[in-house]
């Protein structure tokens, strides 16, 4: 039978080293930084409104169409925020109004006429995620004739 010299001694040293290592501790610092985050999404990127015969009443100059098929979703971890809305058309042929309906957070700013100037759409949405329906109302006068307006609507989270 082969004998390993100093085996008991080696085992003893290893045991001491293991017990010493178990008693050690190491520290490090972990910093979690959360930047200001804002996110917006619309349920559909395209909306088509067409004024048809259903939106015309004989004797009235005003013709209307309403669309409430899309919704806006948002999230922000910063307080004091609002959502604004604007169009890329400075002088559209027809009147286009927009309104937030049933916001799960914040307050709807009410119906506004869209133009190239940003208007309030939702107020006090800070530190929340939420959703609301987008209600568009298109209006045309008989005197304005037939035609179309192609808008690019921009919703923006902005400081309140």
């Amino acid at each position, binding site marked *: 039978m082969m004998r390993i010299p100093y085996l008991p001694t080696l085992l003893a040293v290893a045991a001491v080293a293991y017990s010493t290592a178990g008693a050690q501790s190491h520290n490090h610092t972990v910093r979690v930084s959360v930047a200001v985050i804002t996110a917006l999404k619309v349920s559909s*990127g395209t909306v088509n409104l067409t004024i048809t015969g259903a939106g015309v009443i004989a004797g009235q100059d005003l013709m209307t169409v309403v669309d409430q098929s899309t919704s806006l979703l948002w999230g922000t971890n910063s307080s004091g925020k609002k959502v604004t809305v604007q169009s890329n058309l400075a002088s559209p042929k027809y009147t286009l109004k927009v309104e937030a309906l049933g916001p799960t957070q914040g307050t709807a700013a009410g119906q506004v006429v869209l133009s190239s100037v940003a208007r309030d759409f939702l107020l006090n949405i800070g530190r929340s995620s939420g959703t609301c329906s987008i209600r*568009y109302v298109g209006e045309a006068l008989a005197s304005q004739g037939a035609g179309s307006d192609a808008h690019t609507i921009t919703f923006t989270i902005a400081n309140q």
Partner: protein
Amino acid sequence: MKTRITIMPRLCAILLWFLTIPAVHAQQSAIHQRLLLHVAELNALSVSPTVPAVEMQSAREAISRLVWTSNGNEKKITVAQRPPHTAGIRITLRDMDHRIAATQSVELTGPATIDLLYGLERSAGSCVVEFTVISPQVADSPPVQIIYTVTNS
């Protein structure tokens, strides 16, 4: 030193929401939506009451109110009777609330379609329509349908 990370449940929910929506990975603070508002050529007509009673025997007058809206160019309103009544009907317009050229009085004596209002262009308006039986007929005559049409001038 022990590290302690505390994230509020609400913040967790927001962060989770961000991660679960692919479209918002870029953390956009603005979003665009394309909207097309289209207005077709539209014409509308209405008559009230729809069935004025004209006494054939005495040739008494009856009146209706004709209202219209059109966003088309160079439109007119024509009138016809179906089926053509042998007695004939005179239609007179009054109380026009719109500056359009109007034929003040037309007589429907056959199947022909006659111009009633023209110069109807991108407007809404109304007028009173008076009906008169030109020559009295016997009783039990079938009802006459007056057809108004918006058409191109």
